[in-house]
């Protein structure tokens, strides 16, 4: 068993005579209680139990105090004293904690079981020696009446002391032993013999409890001897009436008064010489062994008799019945009321009351018995008495844990004891607080720490219970001690919680340094990750390392923010102090505050914290609020203050942001080449185009490794920044740190110029890309290592720009354990510009062109490299119509109509070799030379367009190629809306009438210069070849006006290539339908007839001129490609040239050349898509073949469906058009005069049947059905045909035939010319000889809407 706490030791009061106090004072000695206290505890004291067994005590503690002090203190109200005590303890701790923490930090030992504040608290609590109403430990057991022989009449002084009654209140136990002490100093007026005589007289008069103490007390006091420190005691209340009392016994001005914290660090010393010490020690021992202990043993024996008599069966039975019947505990028990302790003051009414009920009665004899037995070490008796007391609800549960062996029951005892003290719920009275504290202190001190911390007892929790809800320093320290004990039990997380709550309470008491210390401890404890008994393969399967787990995010900020805040409060305090100039503090704390606030800003890694709110319960938090803004503001204030007060320290202080703004993986280097649309994959298409082209020409040279950055040229780093905080931040002076790669430490700032961006403001969680430009003045490899910025414009910060390398999978070890390649830094190779051809568009006045405009531009090529450039090519996309070089539109032949031979191929134009000549005209460009190449761009796609050109160049014929990119964005505005429609003509000469309608969509007047039509089969003419009418109408169209004109188309028989083209297409499509490979053959060339209608033939453009031809060809090519892609989506675009020809033979294209003089624009607009003439299902046979072919079954429904769709697309294509080729038109005189008096008349009618087929001869049968002469409607009469009514014949292709018939008219009227039926028969020209040719039949009937009619009038009537 651990020794009892010192507060459970006998309390002995000393009453001094005034002469003794003077004597001690004159020998520079402290008051007698203090001197005697120095000899406590006594070693090797033996006591005896009631059963006369001896109990050895290795140390036996005693408490001495001044009687009058105790008497006086007993008068004070307990509550008031408790308030004073708590304040006193708080003040003591507050005053000394700075020093403690400094000492502790010096020692660096953090896990010491004892902390100075806990010791202090314990000593303060145990130093309380004022008798309490609730327990008897502080009630004096003995009173020593001390005199000195220096008194004028010592015997009289002794008698006076003995005669003085004890001035205790009634509730203090008056059962005390009286002891007389005579101090005989050497320089006393009495001789030794006289003193011995006095002693004998005293013994005779006052009993054997007396002692003569001979002291030498030399006049120059001997050197001080260190003695144990006294327990601190609560100073007396500053009551006015007490001063007289204090003054009388001279205690208030004693030099070494305990409890005065004037000199806490000075050792407690007594200036006594060795002999005197020996004497005093002998006295103390004799007092204890010869008087005190026997007296106590006797008391115990007597009281035990009483006690055990009450424990006998009848009384127990009786008392238990009493309990059963619930009579109040205060009723006196008949037998064991025990007339209290020995009544030296007789006649006092004795009451047995519960230990915890305060009343004007001394502690019960039973309780005193228990206490005495405890003090004497008679544990068996003590435990049984305490148990009895506990069962009666009179206390004892607080002492039992000290005496019993550890068991879970002790926890219950402890909690019951605490509940007895403080039964009220919320508010703990100060007095109760103190008692709780005392209990906790006794337990902590009286139970060996091994037992106390065992999992059975869980002593740390006892302290927490004792701390309760009180928000005073003592309870906070209790929590702190609990935390310390918990951390020793390795319950670190609980310890941290208790540290935090201790800090919370201390903060309210205003004890900042300890608050901070506790918060720090909590922080340290939270940082420690408790070891997990998890399988290592758990981490492996999770792909995480055991270190990077994260705990509750709210906790650390919950600790650190108050921690930081207290720093801030300190710093503000310091600020005020500095103004007052009173206190000197070091401002190191501000620095730490700044660091702390900074560490709080750790960005977001939030998990879902959700909550339900139902009904009235919804008064909780409305969502998870990020504290970033608060933290950031605090940080800003703290840092601002720091920088204001300590600029030199602030500048060197190493602040490091705990999060990153830069997203390394998204940060890129960008070069001037790819500034516009580097991401566009069209560039690689261009390069591929070039490679294919060059290979097709037999060239083997490839592209040289392109030089990304060259000296003197700007390039950029696109910094991807993301704000991880939930608040707005600004970064000032954002720039990059660059290093030269091969020289490890040398900064490249000497030759690389890096842009500095003044201010970047990022909103909460905002991501942004910020380009920072760099220029290098000479070649080298530079590494971009860091980004540098001023966070909040307050301090510099840098971030590494290295991105983690890719995961390695090469070896088994790497696969099992995630291994990464070394970090990747952005490296830029800067080369001398050797091969550098700069290409640029010049003369581009505006980025807006109108639809169909021929935009004239210049390409400026300049050799910026150091080497020669011999040849350069330009690669454009297939959708671009770009004429490179000087224009040539003009006609070389005089005739307006001409025949053009076309390759009829859809092959896109090849890369164009640029005419590179320098100023003097020699080919090639030397370094520094430049040239200009004219360009004409034509575009009829409306909207935003991007022109991307790849300029490929090289030094000489064998050198590899380099390329430069050229990009131009422009917008195309609509200009003209053109319609071209054709219908069978009524005129005999021309099969078709064409109507051209134009609407000017712009606001400017458009002048039409020339209309060119192109067709392999048709030529266009004006009526009677007189174009003047057409030209006149087309002359100019004002803004937003429309215009239309009509001309005619007729067959051009000299053309060739019609059937070849059709055969080519049907063969290719047939192989597609059969899934065969397409042969690498191109369509046969075709001749085109070109009709040109122009106002002024001298300036007319000729289709044979290269530029005109280029644009007409490519315009058609773009159109056909686009149409085919739409109609035949299953055929890849690359194979169009092998399948489809450029011109459908029956097509008729028109091109209109125009000028806008007001805007100095000119251009041409194409109209495509018109086909004239009847088709005869040219692909019918191959489609049938394909359909009738043995169907290859496919297991995929999709494949079948796709095949069907291909077939349908081909069936519906323009090559497979089929129609009735004959168009009937009638010719008759409009009006015939006939005198019907002369009889009926015959009117001749002729029908023209025109065969619109260009290839087939058509058989026809025409039947005239007239003659019914019924009135079809009110206005017209059906024609009464007469004579031959059925006509048969055949019409060769593109020919017409006239059928003559007659009407037999018997009366005047309007006769329609309908009522005919035409049967047509077309014979397919089957290419397969075995199959008989197929015939197609068509039936055509006159339509009732045909209003061809004949009016026959009788002149007599009119």
């Amino acid at each position, binding site marked *: 068993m651990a020794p009892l706490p010192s507060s459970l030791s006998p309390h002995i009061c000393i009453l001094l005579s005034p002469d003794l106090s003077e004597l001690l004072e004159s020998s520079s000695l402290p008051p007698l209680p203090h001197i005697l206290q120095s000899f406590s505890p006594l070693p090797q004291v033996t006591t005896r139990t009631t059963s006369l067994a001896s109990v050895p005590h290795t140390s036996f503690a005693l408490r001495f105090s001044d009687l009058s002090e105790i008497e006086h203190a007993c008068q004070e109200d307990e509550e008031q004293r408790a308030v004073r005590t708590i304040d006193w303890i708080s003040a003591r701790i507050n005053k000394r904690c700075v020093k403690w923490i400094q000492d502790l930090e010096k020692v660096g030992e953090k896990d010491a079981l004892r902390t100075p504040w806990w010791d202090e608290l314990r000593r303060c609590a145990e130093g309380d020696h004022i008798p309490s109403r609730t327990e008897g430990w502080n009630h004096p057991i003995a009173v020593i009446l001390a005199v000195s022989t220096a008194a004028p009449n010592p015997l009289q002084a002794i008698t006076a002391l003995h005669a003085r009654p004890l001035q205790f209140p009634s509730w203090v136990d008056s059962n005390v032993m009286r002891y007389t002490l005579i101090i005989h100093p050497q320089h006393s007026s009495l001789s030794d013999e006289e003193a011995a005589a006095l002693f004998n007289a005293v013994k005779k008069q006052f009993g054997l409890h007396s002692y003569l103490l001979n002291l030498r007390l030399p006049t120059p006091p001997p050197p001080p001897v260190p003695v144990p420190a006294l327990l601190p005691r609560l100073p007396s209340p500053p009551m006015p009436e007490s001063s007289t009392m204090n003054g009388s016994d001279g205690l208030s001005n004693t030099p070494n008064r305990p409890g005065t914290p004037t000199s806490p660090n000075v050792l407690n010393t007594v200036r006594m010489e060795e002999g005197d010490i020996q004497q005093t020690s002998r006295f103390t021992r004799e007092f204890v062994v010869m008087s005190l202990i026997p007296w106590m043993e006797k008391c115990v024996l007597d009281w035990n008799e009483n006690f055990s008599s009450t424990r006998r069966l009848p009384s127990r039975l009786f008392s238990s019945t009493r309990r059963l019947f619930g009579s109040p505990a205060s009723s006196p028990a008949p037998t064991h009321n025990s007339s209290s302790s020995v009544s030296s003051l007789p006649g006092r009414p004795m009451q047995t009351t519960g230990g915890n009920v305060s009343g004007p009665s001394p502690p019960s004899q039973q309780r005193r018995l228990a206490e005495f037995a405890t003090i004497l070490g008679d544990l068996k008796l003590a435990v049984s008495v305490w148990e009895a007391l506990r069962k009666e609800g009179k206390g004892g549960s607080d002492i039992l844990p000290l005496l019993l062996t550890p068991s879970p029951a002790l*926890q*219950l005892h*402890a*909690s019951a004891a*605490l*509940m007895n003290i*403080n*039964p*009220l*719920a*919320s508010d703990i009275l100060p007095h109760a607080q103190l008692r709780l504290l005392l209990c906790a202190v006794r337990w902590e001190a009286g139970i060996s720490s091994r037992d106390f911390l065992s999992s059975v007892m869980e002593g740390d929790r006892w302290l*927490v*219970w004792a*701390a*309760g*809800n009180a928000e005073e320093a003592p309870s906070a320290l209790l929590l702190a001690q609990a935390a310390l004990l*918990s951390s020793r039990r*390795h*319950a*670190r*997380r*609980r310890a*941290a*919680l208790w540290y*935090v*709550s201790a800090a*919370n*309470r201390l903060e309210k008491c205003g004890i900042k340094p300890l608050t901070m210390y506790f918060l720090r401890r909590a922080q340290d404890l*939270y940082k420690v990750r*408790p070891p*997990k008994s*998890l399988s290592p393969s*758990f981490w492996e399967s*999770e*792909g995480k390392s*055991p270190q990077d*787990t*994260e*705990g*509750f*995010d*709210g*906790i650390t900020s*919950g*600790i650190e923010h108050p921690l930081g805040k207290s720093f801030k409060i300190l710093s503000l305090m310091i600020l005020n102090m500095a103004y007052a100039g009173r206190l000197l503090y070091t401002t190191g704390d501000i620095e730490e505050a700044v660091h702390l606030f900074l560490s709080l800003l750790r960005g977001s890694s939030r*998990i*879902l*914290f*959700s*909550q*339900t*709110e*139902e*009904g*009235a*319960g*919804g008064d*909780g*938090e409305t969502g*998870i609020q990020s504290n970033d803004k608060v933290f950031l503001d605090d940080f800003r204030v703290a840092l601002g203050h720091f920088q204001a007060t300590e600029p030199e320290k602030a500048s060197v202080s190493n602040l490091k942001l705990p999060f990153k703004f830069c997203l390394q993986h998204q940060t890129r280097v960008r070069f001037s080449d790819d500034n516009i649309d580097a991401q566009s994959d069209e560039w690689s298409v261009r390069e591929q185009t070039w490679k294919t082209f060059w290979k097709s020409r037999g060239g083997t040279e490839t592209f040289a490794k392109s030089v990304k950055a060259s000296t003197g040229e700007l390039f950029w780093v696109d910094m991807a920044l993301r704000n991880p905080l939930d608040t707005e931040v600004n970064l000032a002076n954002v720039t990059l740190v660059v290093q030269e790669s091969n020289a490890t430490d040398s900064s490249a700032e000497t030759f690389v110029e890096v842009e500095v961006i003044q201010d970047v403001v990022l909103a909460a969680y905002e991501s942004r890309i910020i380009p920072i430009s760099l220029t290098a003045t000479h070649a080298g490899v530079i590494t971009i290592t860091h980004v540098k910025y001023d966070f909040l414009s307050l301090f510099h910060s840098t971030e590494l720009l290295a991105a983690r390398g890719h995961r390695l999978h090469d070896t088994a070890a790497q696969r099992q354990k995630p291994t990464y390649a070394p970090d990747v830094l952005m490296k830029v190779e800067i080369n001398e510009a050797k091969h550098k051809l700069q290409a640029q568009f010049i003369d581009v006045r505006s980025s807006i062109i109108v639809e169909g405009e021929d935009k004239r531009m210049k390409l400026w090529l300049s050799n910026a490299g150091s080497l020669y450039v011999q040849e350069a090519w330009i690669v454009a996309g297939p959708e671009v119509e770009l004429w490179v070089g000087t224009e040539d539109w003009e006609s070389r032949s005089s005739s307006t109509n001409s025949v053009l031979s076309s390759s009829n191929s859809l092959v896109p134009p090849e890369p164009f070799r640029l005419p590179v000549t320098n100023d003097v005209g020699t080919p090639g460009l030397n370094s520094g030379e430049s040239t200009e190449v004219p360009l004409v761009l034509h575009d009829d796609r409306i909207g935003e367009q991007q022109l991307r050109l790849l300029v490929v160049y090289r030094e000489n014929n064998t050198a590899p190629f380099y390329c430069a990119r050229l990009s131009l964005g422009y917008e195309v505005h609509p200009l003209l809306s053109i319609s071209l429609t054709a219908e069978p003509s009524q005129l005999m000469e021309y099969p078709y009438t064409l109507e051209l309608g134009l609407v000017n969509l712009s606001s400017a007047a458009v002048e039409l210069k020339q209309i060119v039509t192109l067709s392999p089969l048709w030529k266009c003419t004006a009526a009677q070849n007189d174009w003047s009418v057409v030209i006149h109408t087309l002359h100019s169209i004002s803004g937003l006006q429309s215009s239309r004109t009509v001309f005619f188309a007729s067959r051009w028989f000299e053309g060739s290539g019609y059937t070849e083209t059709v055969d080519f297409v049907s063969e290719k499509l047939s192989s597609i339908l059969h899934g065969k490979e397409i042969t690498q053959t191109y369509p046969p060339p075709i001749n085109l007839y070109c009709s040109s209608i122009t106002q002024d033939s001298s300036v007319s453009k000729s289709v044979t001129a290269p530029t005109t031809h280029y644009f007409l060809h490519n315009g058609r090519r773009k159109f056909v490609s686009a149409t085919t892609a739409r109609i035949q989506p299953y055929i890849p675009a690359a194979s169009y040239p092998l399948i489809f020809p450029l011109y459908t033979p029956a097509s008729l294209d028109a091109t209109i050349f125009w000028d806008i003089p007001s805007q100095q624009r000119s251009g041409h607009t194409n109209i495509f898509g018109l086909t004239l003439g009847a088709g005869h299902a040219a692909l019918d046979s191959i489609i049938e073949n394909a359909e009738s072919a043995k169907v290859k079954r496919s297991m995929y429904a999709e494949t079948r469906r796709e095949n069907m769709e291909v077939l349908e697309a081909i069936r519906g294509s323009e090559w497979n058009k089929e129609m009735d080729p004959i168009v009937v038109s009638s010719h008759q005189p409009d009006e015939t005069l006939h005198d019907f008096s002369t009889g009926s008349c015959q009117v001749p009618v002729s029908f023209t049947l025109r065969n619109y087929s260009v290839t087939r001869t058509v058989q026809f049968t025409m039947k005239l059905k007239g003659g019914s002469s019924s009135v079809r409607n009110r206005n017209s009469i059906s024609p009464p045909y007469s004579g031959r009514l059925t006509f048969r014949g055949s019409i060769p292709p593109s020919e017409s035939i006239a059928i003559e018939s007659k009407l037999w008219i018997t009366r005047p009227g309007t006769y329609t010319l309908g009522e005919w039926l035409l049967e047509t028969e077309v014979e397919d020209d089957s290419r397969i000889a075995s199959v008989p040719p197929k015939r197609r039949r068509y039936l055509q009937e006159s339509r009732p809407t045909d209003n061809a009619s004949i009016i026959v009038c009788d002149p007599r009537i009119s």
Partner: protein
Amino acid sequence: MSHHLFLLSPSDTPLYSLTHYSTKPAPSVTSPLASNLPTWSTSAFAGTLTALSGASSATQHTTGGAVRMGGGQDRHVIQMIANASLDVIEDIMRKENTMYLKSVDKFNEWTVSAFITAGNMKFILLHEGKNDDGIRAFFVDVWELYVKTMLNPFHTAHTPIRSAVFDGRVRASAKKYL
């Protein structure tokens, strides 16, 4: 009456948390016995007394800014308590084999119950009243929901649970049982 649920991974990373305000009438039958309980009614005696009287601590509602330890609804305090209770839970896990750890720890007015799945996941519930069967049923429900979440092949033991479905169902279960 509020409840705080935390789902912790085997390495104690919080994956999900829920604050549930119960509409169930807090057993406010404050018997004289219960009203005598101290707020730090963490003692075993107080616990049995609470059990006897069926009353919860009557002093759970603190008003105003005075943040009493554990009394306020401060998120970090709640988290600290949940975190601190892990010490006891781990102790018990070592000794016992049950999944449902009933009222393993107490901090001021908060009682901590826990549920340990076979995969070492810890469900921690901070509650004020006593509702053994309800809490057990709630834990079993949450367990089932968690297992369903774990069936997602992309869900690891450390993936925070953000599924709205999971959240909704846990809430529904909390409404039902707590």
